[in-house]
């Protein structure tokens, strides 16, 4: 995933915006909501790069069968509110080896409409989850994972081509006791 250092080049892109903002009188500023302003002025590609996603687990190795807690941190690096348009009302997902919510079966059938994931200026959001070391193999059935290495991922639900920009991965090893 992209780290902060990638972003320094983007700074110039923000500057004109900041200037724009200064031009607006405080009076009229109050009547324009920030989300609207950012939708208007911050291009989509920049908004995607503005949001960083990180997934982390407390340990890198776990005993077979143990619960694996993970924490997903998302941060808006821009000093303005940013709203990402997601492919469905599902705003973000976590995966194990690329399988959404560690499931081999499609669990969600979200409405056929886009969603909006909003971040206030500089906002950091934290979500915690856990993988129970099981894969869902049918609507009502799960199977335990075997020892080995697995990749946990989290990404915001934007177009696949852009997902790398707003996603992160980490690996864990499951070891027999």
């Amino acid at each position, binding site marked *: 995933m992209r780290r902060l250092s990638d972003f320094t080049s983007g700074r110039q892109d923000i500057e004109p915006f900041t200037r724009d903002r200064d031009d607006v009188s405080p009076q009229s500023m109050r009547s324009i909501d920030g989300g609207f302003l950012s939708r208007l002025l911050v291009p989509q590609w920049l908004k995607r790069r503005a949001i960083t996603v990180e997934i982390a687990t407390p340990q890198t190795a776990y005993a077979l069968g143990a619960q694996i807690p993970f924490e997903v941190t998302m941060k808006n690096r821009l000093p303005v509110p940013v709203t990402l348009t997601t492919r469905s*009302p*599902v*705003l973000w997902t976590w995966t194990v080896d690329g399988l959404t919510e560690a499931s081999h079966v499609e669990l*969600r*059938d*979200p*409405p056929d409409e886009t*969603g909006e*994931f909003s971040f206030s200026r500089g906002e950091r*959001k934290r*979500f915690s*989850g*856990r993988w*129970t070391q*099981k894969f*869902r193999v049918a*609507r*009502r*059935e*799960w*199977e*335990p994972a075997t020892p080995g290495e697995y990749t946990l991922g989290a990404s915001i639900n934007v177009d696949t081509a852009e997902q790398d920009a707003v996603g992160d991965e980490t690996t864990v090893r499951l070891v027999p006791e």
Partner: protein
Amino acid sequence: MALLEVEDLTVNFYTEEGVVTAADEVSYRVERGEKFGIVGESGAGKSVTSMSLMRLIEDPGRIESGEIRFKGEDILEMSETEVRELRGNEIAMIFQDAQTALNPVFTVGEQISEAIRHNLGYDDDKARERTIRLLDEVGIPEAEARYSDYPHEFSGGMQQRAVIAMALSCDPDLLIADEPTTALDVTIEAKILDQIEELAEEFDTAIQLITHDLGVIAKVCDRVMVMYAGKPVEKAAAEELFYDPKHPYTVGLMSSIPRIGDTRDRLQTIPGTMPDLVDVPTGCSFHPRCPYAEAACTRKEPKPVDPDTGMDATGTDADRAAACLAYTGDLAGELDYTVEVQGEDPRLQLGDHRE
């Protein structure tokens, strides 16, 4: 045809934390004039299920699938106008925070009269007459004088009674009462439940009563559905539920049974808490708290089945259902609890013989 048939209702909330399935393939029915109870811990999906009947689920929630047939017609397919026609007229609802149903700037009597004029087409005098009779019936003393009081001049219990009067004013076929008495003190709670019952009988109104209190169910209901983590885990006639509970969660709910008004947290006896619905356990959602859980319970999600035959009982017709692997031959052990009836008291105590 039952008055109300809910089939496979699924409601999701698309939150930032994740997708919350607050009602997960919920099916049940309410017959005409019947008193049907929905019981479960906070967050089980009782209100979401009830709000769905009135199509009152708000963003980020979506009624995603299922049918809600009222007198055979699917509410989910109706136009907004048709649904509005239904609300407050054929289906009335008393909310959890019932007092907010009263508008502070109009007198209590005026509000009820207005509802009657609007829904039943009565003229002013007749509506006033009916309102006073209703206020009297729900136990408001000096109803005629109280007609012109503002809501703030009523005590909490009286406000609640006024809300009940308003809900019943249009002679609904179905009254949805979502924890109508939780905000009240115990003596009033019992009285108000009596009144709801009496009035429902008098007007031949069916009631869907939502509560976290099995004592209330025992007092009022004919049939019951127990919900856990958005799913129906047991369905039974009220009496059967008390004398022969089939789901370990129901057993847990009962082990510190419900006296009306008992202020103890009744679910303390089941260790743990209900899962966060964005992170529901694999297999049976109740397994982390279940004293009878086995490995299978972490790997297979039980369907509602007839506990005697193990046959599928997911539909609206099922009168007896429990969603536990014990009834599908998937468990090695047995659920060995017994229910003891103490004396004349219809309340039950539970003996867990495992310890």
